[in-house]
């Protein structure tokens, strides 16, 4: 399972998982779960577009990520963000259907993009995945305090001069980048569970943001490593295990928070 062609998978999956754990923390505390669910699905047709145009798959995904951000941002200026997100999803999925019908992509590849594929990562994918992930992670660390403050209260952020509207847009870009690179590994449907499961568990284990982020990254890495190993051994789809461990981590985290609160109530 650590032979030559699997090495790329391990490297790519580790990078993607660490980034998802970091970005996912802010998805959870900022209540951006719907965007984290919709963006990967909106971006997924980018792979079909890339196949049609004969360009790098990651390039196609990032291009669609940009379209997703532009769509959500432009539409949410005139209405509610959830509606803007849903409309963007519908438009990009429609475009995706068109591209899929134009290409000779087999059902199996589409299945891989939706549910994840262990063996789909080539050596050529590592560099773009690493670069995009580093950019997303760097942006999160740079915006750490404004992201946190506007998650506590937009009014407080505005009064402190932290421009919450600009922070929202920056976060959308970060989320889109992290989704685009996680997608070929864990699949469009399960990027969401990797973003939300570990982070939601982590925020219940500690009251410190820094520690919660470290835990979120650790749980995310463990989830992905276990999922790849089990997928390799059983031949079941990697996405199944990602979803399963994500939900398990969330459940255990909720239990832990409950226990901590009960213990304090008794003390």
């Amino acid at each position, binding site marked *: 399972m650590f032979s030559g062609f699997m090495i790329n998978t391990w490297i790519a999956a580790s990078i993607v998982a660490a980034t998802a754990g970091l970005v996912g923390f802010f998805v*959870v*505390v900022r*209540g951006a779960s719907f965007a984290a669910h919709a963006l990967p699905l909106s971006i997924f047709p980018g792979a079909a577009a890339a196949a049609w145009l004969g360009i790098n798959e990651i390039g196609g995904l990032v291009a669609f990520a940009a379209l997703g951000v532009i769509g959500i941002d432009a539409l949410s200026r005139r209405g509610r963000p959830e509606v803007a997100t849903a409309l963007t999803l519908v438009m990009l999925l429609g475009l995706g259907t068109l591209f899929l019908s134009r290409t000779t992509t087999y059902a199996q590849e589409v299945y891989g993009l939706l549910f994840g594929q262990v063996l789909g990562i080539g050596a050529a994918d590592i560099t773009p995945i690493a670069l995009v992930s580093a950019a997303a992670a760097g942006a999160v*660390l*740079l*915006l*750490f*305090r*404004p992201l*946190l*403050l506007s*998650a*506590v*209260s937009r*009014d*407080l*952020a*505005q*009064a*402190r*001069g*932290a421009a919450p509207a600009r922070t929202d847009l920056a976060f959308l870009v970060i989320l889109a980048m992290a989704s685009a690179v996680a997608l070929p590994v864990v699949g469009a449907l399960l990027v969401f569970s990797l973003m939300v499961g570990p982070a939601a568990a*982590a*925020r*219940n284990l*500690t*009251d*410190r*943001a820094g*520690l*919660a982020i470290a835990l979120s990254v650790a749980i995310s890495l463990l989830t992905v490593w276990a999922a790849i190993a089990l997928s390799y051994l059983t031949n079941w789809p990697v996405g199944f295990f990602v979803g399963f461990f994500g939900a398990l981590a969330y459940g255990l985290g909720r239990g832990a*928070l409950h226990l901590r*609160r009960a213990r304090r109530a008794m003390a």
Partner: protein
Amino acid sequence: MLTLSSISVAFAGRTILHNVDFTLAQGSFCGLIGSNGSGKTTLLRTILGLVKPDRGTVDTGGHEIGYVPQKIQLDPFMPLRARDVVALGLDGNRFGLPLPSAARRRTVDAMLTAVDATGFADRRVGDLSGGQQQRIMIAHALVRRPKLLLLDEPLANLDLRSVAEVVSLLHTLSFEQRITVLLSAHDMNPLLPVMDRIVYLANGSSVSGTVGEVVRGAVLSRLYGYHIDVIRVHGRVLVVAAGGEDGLDADIACEPVHVTQIR
């Protein structure tokens, strides 16, 4: 310290504030009183520069302003301690990671002591009671040592004891550190012992002065545009509209606080 000169604000052609004028001296404690929708939040946001007035000027003398917004709902799942929220008041707009620094910690600790929050400083902020959260919000607003503090309905949703505690905390801070406090509320009664100025908003207009000057039947009748009686009973002030059921004006009908107090 703070001077507003003929401030007018309209949203979508509807006048919310019309020719609002008042001046606050350094260290004064002022209640901004008005019913729901009278424009209290709009006035505070205008002072902060978050709402641009259509006419008039705000002069804060270049002072830094601390602000406690209305109705902050803290997420009980947010992994932040009370002290982290105070620290975000210090530098929450800065880029990069907050590096641990002894000076930063001392500043935050001093502020937590000032609002009497040391006992729960390390607890998850979303788990605190309403009164405890309000103390943390006040510490967040004051941690950069502003000389002007604006609070938007900080007493709403607090029980009687917490109301008294928060009012006395604000009074102490204002008195000891010469902080000018402007605090909005729909009920002036909890503030009567501490406020030395009042700005009363109704119909988009305002009157200001000492409580004795403003809270009088003749003055408020002119502001509301119909007959108002001010009744003082058991150390409380009741503002009531005259007239029977037919005469009950829509504006008074949306002041349930005043109505309940009569019963």
